């Protein structure tokens, strides 16, 4: 049984690695996080005991390791620079009075897009195009579902700074998806 469990867990490594790489950006850090998660999983086999789906369970463990890694990295690195907190890149979207230069159109059938692999690949590419910390802040908020206070602590930024980062992420992602998916 134990050997079988280990084989199943190992079989999910490629998936977990892809998941961690998307969030951590760095192959070595992702590898470490996955390794830690797998070690924890194998040590905690009894906690799994057929509960839920193995992949869901492993992803849950990995999420904690990813947050640990981001926390460690932001302690080691200097605090976010001002470049992370400007929104000048979106100024061209608005006219002098602050109104849309070209009002955004609605997206056609966004729910249908979610069921398509190509759409999720386009979304992952758009996330990779974001500045690293902006992407991490956004993933912590929207994917991992952390509260803003917790993200501020992990990334060592003020709430105001975080709101700007999340605004940038949302504006950049909507532009990216507009161009690479909905306008195609």
């Amino acid at each position: 049984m134990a050997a079988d469990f280990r084989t199943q867990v190992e079989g999910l490594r490629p998936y977990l690695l892809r998941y961690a790489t998307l969030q951590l950006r760095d192959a070595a850090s992702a590898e470490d996080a996955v390794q830690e998660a797998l070690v924890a999983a194998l040590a905690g086999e009894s906690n799994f005991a057929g509960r839920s789906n193995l992949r869901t369970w492993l992803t849950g463990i990995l999420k904690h390791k990813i947050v640990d890694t981001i926390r460690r990295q932001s302690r080691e690195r200097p605090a976010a620079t001002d470049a992370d907190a400007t929104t000048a890149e979106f100024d061209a979207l608005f006219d002098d009075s602050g109104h849309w230069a070209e009002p955004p159109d609605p997206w056609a059938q966004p729910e249908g897009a979610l069921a398509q692999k190509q759409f999720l690949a386009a979304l992952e590419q758009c996330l990779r195009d974001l500045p690293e910390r902006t992407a991490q802040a956004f993933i912590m908020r929207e994917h991992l579902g952390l509260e803003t206070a917790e993200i501020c602590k992990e990334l060592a930024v003020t709430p105001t700074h975080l709101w700007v980062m999340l605004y940038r992420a949302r504006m950049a992602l909507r532009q990216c998806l507009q161009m690479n998916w909905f306008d195609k």
Partner: protein
Amino acid sequence: MMLSCKETSRLLSQGEDRKLGFGERVALRVHLAICDGCRNVNAQFRFLRVAVKSLSRDENETA
């Protein structure tokens, strides 16, 4: 207070991350009632949240 679209887009984003004040919520509602572009952006921000949540749910063949 009349919001511009630029201010509205910021408040829509912040509304996903903090509880907006009463005045902010009223100003947003007034603006959204008259602005198609901002209503579309609001829907797109919400969709982004759902889409990013579903990222780990693809690739069911590996499950």
